[in-house]
């Protein structure tokens, strides 16, 4: 230590330059750091979407999901594969182990996707990877406002898909723009089946004819003289007229045009999503998805600028109106923490001034704050941590602590300078002062860093949320250590002066405030040192209070971050039609519009272009657009407003409502976990058996004592019209199954027959029967199929047509179908419940071969977390113990300092209780921080008491004198830490709800632990004092 300090003081210039380099590097890093609202908690996930128009869940699973899953099996770092086969859409979620590089994962998936494509039958869709983005990626939603009212939804959607989308996608950092709402333009060939019969043409012939009359070809070139002429033949249809005039057949020289068989018109594609607004209209909208890892705020800025440009080139009367922007959230949460940071810095500086009583030392200490913060920035840049609520929150928490090391150092220098003999060179005094405290500072700060170790082992969402905080705190503390050891001596030498006038001995140069405090403190400390029993009683009473209050505290997981945007989510009956769900949604929108605070409502029903959402049409997300907060009349907070919304919306028949927030919702979707404590998964092949056995399990589990909310997934409930081709019937007419199915597909579902190009825009030609010939069971029965030989047979004579109830969706995990039965456990320990439940299922449910039950859910995660903590916490304690022991070389001292912890905990517990908060992950992070801070205070005092004892001062006198002399540094470090946190405690800004419990715990704990440090430790020091004999022998 001595050598280091000497080296430092000899190379002042070098260290100053290095220090300035760190500052500059920190600033540079800060400019490079991505800025987000919250830490991104999305899992390492690659999604594969396959859209297959018109296919039912069973077929999707068989033809699409299965090949994709099989191809993905065995990828490196693969955690699990979960898939959902829905009507018309297959989603395969490939989860990788946390920390897997997303580009690496995508590359792996992409390679295997080739295999999968080969296995998927022609025409059953092409699997695509989702956008390179995460749950935080949806940065901006907008809708198109048509003030003229003249544009159809199809025209607006065309503008969105072919103009706005392409423009926005060129913005760096935007990975995808997804459209929804309105109608995708198509050219509809609406076939009259009677006309087909009249002219003896089948729908498939008609499709073929359209395809072969809509082509451009190239035919190389010819040479003429010295020139080459490129030969091309154009035969593309360009408009409705061209399509209408396609000749389908000619008989006796009389052409039969398409227009004689069908109406050709512009129509909308089949859609699975609608966007509505204010309960009065449908709109076209889009969402901008940010590229993984890009800087939210700059991307948003660029997108906004681009939107202005686009607005100027849009047809007059149309404009882009953003209705959700992550920008406001990013700004608000960054503002919350930066405000807290700045206020904290000011408060800390005031404390320094008050206690130091002079300006110069305060300057030295104050510089440690920017240094530590910028040092942490370099680390953040290195570890790829974004600026967000949690990482900056960590800095805000650490503000008070980062000055501690330097305070102790500078305070010692200050004191030594005052007490030094006038003859001694100033630099010698400084060196002596620095060496004296350097070692304890090193240990104290190391301990603070070590106590944050358990946070690094957190997994999943908590891990992703709190690790940035742990990183920044540790980095900032490391920075403050570097500053205290390497720069504080240099700066002390530059800034600090020997006091001009030496004051009287008894005052020892303390300023007014400290003197005042000492006046109160002296009688107290004398009392406790004389009556040690009282000191112990005080400690015991405090611990008892804490123990009494602790069970009264409620507990919650993590307080919900208020994003400032309210989403009302509707879940409707699974079999609902899009038209009906739109109607219901608009009713709810109208109810919402009656709330005075609500400015508008924009709702997405179902899904648009795949990529961001895969919601079925029975789900609607309503973005409730609020007036500015100062215009609110009946609500003050977001929570009030949510209540008002609940009241206004009330019970909507047939609809489950749920209030959530954009990011929260997206992340929940990606995590896709079961929310209940227990999830019993039944794996097996047959959907009916799964359903039946799951119902049995529900009955069995319900009888196990402690079971609550037992529910099995509803996997069926979608009505189907099942057309089963009768093989005997078709055999009679010489038909193939496919011949019949092709007619069904083209007539009822429609079939694409090429594209129409309008410049670069391309639109599909869809051939389909007239609605009245396909939209009812009766009509479908009458669809005619032509057999070889020209006989035409109605479908009902070839197939059995019936209405059945089919599966809603098929979920699979690791290539096996499963159904989940979830349950909570009340008044009982989960372990025994699981054991009893397992036994009950084994005895009462007879599972066919190949069916398997697994138990999982939150309880498994908790068990894992507990197991990990059971190892990590003792290890951390051991490290702390070793650090303390190697610092003091005394078991007794170590225990004395560890005594701080229970008393600090008491304060934290009381703090939570008084403010009515719960135990939660952030509050335990507070407790962790508290450990470190409490130990630090104890160390400062005990070190000095040992010093006095070694100098030969008698025990009692040493106790009192040591305590009096260390009052200033102990109070200062405690106060700076506490006051640094006050802004977080009082803040009501976005994201403050996560930081508040943490600040409460630390401030509360600091109060009790400071009492202990100042009153109890000196009193009981006697029993824990170092053995002077041992010390002497060592010396």
């Amino acid at each position, binding site marked *: 230590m001595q050598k280091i300090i000497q080296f430092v003081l000899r190379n002042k210039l070098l260290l100053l330059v290095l220090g300035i380099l760190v500052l500059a590097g920190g600033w540079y890093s800060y400019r490079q750091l991505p800025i987000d609202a919250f830490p991104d908690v999305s899992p390492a996930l690659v999604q594969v979407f396959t859209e297959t128009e018109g296919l039912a869940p069973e077929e999707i699973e068989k033809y699409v999901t299965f090949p994709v899953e099989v191809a993905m099996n065995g990828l490196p770092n693969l955690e699990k594969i979960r898939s*959902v086969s829905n009507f018309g859409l297959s*989603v395969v979620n490939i989860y990788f182990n946390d920390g897997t590089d997303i580009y690496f994962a995508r590359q792996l998936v992409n390679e295997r996707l080739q295999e999968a494509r080969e296995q998927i039958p022609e025409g059953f869709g092409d699997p695509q990877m989702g956008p390179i983005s995460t749950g935080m990626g949806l940065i901006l939603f907008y809708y198109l406002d048509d003030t003229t009212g003249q544009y159809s939804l199809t025209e607006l959607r065309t503008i969105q898909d072919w103009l706005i989308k392409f423009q926005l996608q060129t913005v760096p950092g935007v990975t995808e723009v997804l459209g929804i709402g309105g109608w995708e333009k198509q050219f509809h060939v609406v076939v009259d089946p*009677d006309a087909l*019969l009249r002219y003896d043409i089948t729908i498939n012939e008609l499709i073929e004819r359209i395809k072969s009359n809509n082509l451009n070809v190239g035919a190389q070139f010819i040479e003429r003289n010295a020139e080459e002429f490129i030969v091309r033949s154009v035969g593309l249809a360009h408009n409705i007229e061209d399509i209408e005039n396609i000749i389908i057949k000619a008989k006796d020289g009389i052409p039969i045009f398409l227009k004689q068989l069908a109406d050709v018109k512009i129509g909308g594609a089949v859609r699975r999503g609608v966007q509505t607004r204010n309960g009065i209209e449908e709109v076209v909208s889009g969402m901008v998805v940010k590229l993984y890892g890009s800087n939210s705020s700059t991307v948003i800025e660029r997108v906004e600028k681009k939107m202005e440009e686009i607005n100027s080139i849009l047809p007059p009367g149309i404009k882009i109106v953003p209705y959700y922007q992550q920008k406001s959230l990013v700004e608000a949460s960054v503002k919350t923490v930066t405000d807290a940071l700045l206020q904290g810095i000011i408060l800390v500086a005031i404390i320094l001034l008050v206690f130091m009583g002079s300006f110069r030392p305060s300057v030295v200490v104050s510089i440690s704050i920017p240094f530590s913060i910028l040092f942490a920035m370099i680390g953040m840049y290195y570890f790829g941590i974004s600026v967000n609520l949690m990482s900056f929150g960590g800095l805000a928490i650490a503000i008070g602590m980062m000055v501690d090391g330097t305070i102790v150092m500078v305070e010692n220098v200050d004191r030594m300078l005052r007490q030094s003999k006038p003859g001694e060179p100033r630099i010698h005094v400084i060196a002596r002062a620095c060496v004296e405290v350097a070692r304890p500072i090193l240990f104290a700060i190391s301990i603070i860093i070590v106590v944050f170790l*358990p946070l690094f082992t957190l997994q999943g969402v908590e891990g992703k949320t709190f690790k940035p905080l742990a990183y920044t705190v540790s980095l900032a503390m490391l920075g403050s250590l570097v500053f205290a050891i390497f720069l504080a001596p240099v700066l002390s030498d530059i800034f600090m002066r020997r006091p001009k006038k030496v004051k009287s001995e008894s005052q020892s140069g303390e300023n007014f405030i400290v003197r005042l405090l000492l006046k109160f403190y002296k009688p107290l400390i004398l009392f406790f040192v004389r009556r040690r029993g009282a000191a112990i009683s005080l400690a015991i009473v405090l*611990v008892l209070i804490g123990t009494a209050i602790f069970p009264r505290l409620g*507990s*919650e*997981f993590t307080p919900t971050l208020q994003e400032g945007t309210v989403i009302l989510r509707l*879940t409707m*009956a*699974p079999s609902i039609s899009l038209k009906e769900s739109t109607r219901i949604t608009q*009713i709810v929108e109208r109810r919402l519009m009656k709330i005075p605070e609500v400015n508008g409502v924009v709702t997405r029903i179902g899904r648009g272009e795949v990529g961001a959402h*895969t*919601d*079925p049409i*029975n*789900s609607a997300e309503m973005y409730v657009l609020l007036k500015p907060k100062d215009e609110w009349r009946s609500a003050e907070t977001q929570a009030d407003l949510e209540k008002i919304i609940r009241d206004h919306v009330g019970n909507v*028949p*047939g*609809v489950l409502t749920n209030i959530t927030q954009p990011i929260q919702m997206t992340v929940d979707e*990606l995590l896709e976990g079961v*929310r*209940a404590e227990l999830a019993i998964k039944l794996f097996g092949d047959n959907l009916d058996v799964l359903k039946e056995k799951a119902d049995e399990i529900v009955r069995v589990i319900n009888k196990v004592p402690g079971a*609550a*909310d037992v*529910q099995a*997934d*509803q*996997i069926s409930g979608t*009505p189907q019209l099942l057309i089963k081709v009768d093989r005997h019937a078709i055999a009679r007419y010489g038909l193939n199954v496919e011949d019949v199915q092709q007619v069904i597909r083209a007539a009822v579902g429609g079939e694409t027959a090429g594209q129409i190009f309008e410049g670069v825009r391309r639109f599909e030609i869809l051939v389909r029967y007239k609605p009245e010939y396909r939209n*009812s069971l*009766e009509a479908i029965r009458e669809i005619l199929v032509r057999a070889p*030989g*020209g*006989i*035409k*047979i109605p479908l009902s*004579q070839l197939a059995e047509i019936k209405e059945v*109830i089919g599966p*809603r969706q098929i*979920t699979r995990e690791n290539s096996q179908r499963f159904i*989940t039965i979830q349950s*909570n456990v*009340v008044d009982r320990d989960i372990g025994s419940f699981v054991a009893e439940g397992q036994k009950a299922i084994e005895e009462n449910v007879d599972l066919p071969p190949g069916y398997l039950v697994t138990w999982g859910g*939150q*309880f498994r995660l908790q068990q894992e*977390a*507990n197991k990990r*903590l059971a190892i990590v*916490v*003792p290890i951390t304690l051991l490290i702390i113990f070793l650090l303390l022991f190697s610092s003091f070389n005394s078991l007794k001292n170590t*225990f004395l300092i*560890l*005594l701080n*912890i229970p008393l600090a905990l008491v304060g934290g517990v009381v703090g939570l209780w008084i403010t009515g908060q*719960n135990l*939660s992950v952030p509050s*335990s992070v507070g*407790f962790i921080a508290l450990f470190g801070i409490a130990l630090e205070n104890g160390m400062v005092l005990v070190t000095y008491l040992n010093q006095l004892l070694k100098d030969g001062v008698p025990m009692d006198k040493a106790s009192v004198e040591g305590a009096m002399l260390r009052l200033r540094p102990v109070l200062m470090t405690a106060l700076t830490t506490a006051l640094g946190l006050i802004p977080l405690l009082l803040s009501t800004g976005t994201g403050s709800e996560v930081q508040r419990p943490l600040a409460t715990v630390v401030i509360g704990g600091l109060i009790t632990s400071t009492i202990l440090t100042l009153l109890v430790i000196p009193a009981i020091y006697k029993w824990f004092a170092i053995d002077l004999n041992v010390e002497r022998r060592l010396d």
Partner: protein
Amino acid sequence: MKNRFKTIFLNGLLAVFVTTAVVLLQSCANGSDAEKTKDTHKEESMEEEGHEQEEIVRFSAEELKEFGIETAVAGPGKLQVHIDLTGEIVIDPDRLAHIFPRFPGIVKNVRKKIGDKVKKGEVLAIIESNESLVPYEVKSLINGTVIEMHLTLGEVVNDARHAFLIADLSHVWANLNVYQKDLPYVKIGRKATISAGYGIKEAVGVISYISPVVDEMTRTATARVVLPNPDGRWRPGLFVNATVVKEEMEVDIIVPKTALENFENQTVVFIKTDEGFKPQPVSVGRSNTYSVEIIAGLQAGQEYVSKGGFTIKAELQKSELGEGHGH
């Protein structure tokens, strides 16, 4: 002694510290359950409420209006079930006349052309016989319209080919193709509505004939409707559709198809009781595209939901909605 006390004291302290730390960290890990349990309890209580009411839903008058739920009173009605057939208009062979030149000769004069209306005995053309070199008149045998003409002025014609085809189009036949599956229902005497679309007015006729054999090529039988055609709109060759009444009956209870809902694997109609709406399983009889006969489960005079029953069904299923939606 004093030392032992101290060791115990210290050990105790350390134990307190370790346990508090572990308890704290675990309790927050458990925190999530407590909260979630609370939430699900809420849902559960909602659900239980639903069960206590024995599947009854209440709506206020405003809600009924807002959600478009309409009721009607069950009662008797007429239920018509029909079959759709395709067919074409053909000339009645009994009203067709082939006019042949009696002797080969040269056409000297053509009096009528295609489309002209002619009367029985009216001269159509004059031909000079090759044998006698005497011109003779070719006359129409019936009242009708010239639909074919195979002679030109100066042409040499013979008696091998008809010169005129005269059809009386005042009545035409609509020949309908009857598929095997429809044969039992298509009977002589049944009414059939014939339409050709494209603004051609519909006509109603009666099936007067059904072919005794089924065509080997098309596997259809032919049913015939004789249509009066005073305005000539039923042009032979026209493609037509026919709706034949399969059955027509008076039923005791008839409801629109919109009233039927599938609820818990049963077909139900929601009936209005004093307590509210409740599902009533019904057995359905015959039906057509719009209406259905109720055989059992609904009494005449009962008020039932004729439209918007889906909302009621969804409300009853609400407790199940939450799970399994596709993400």
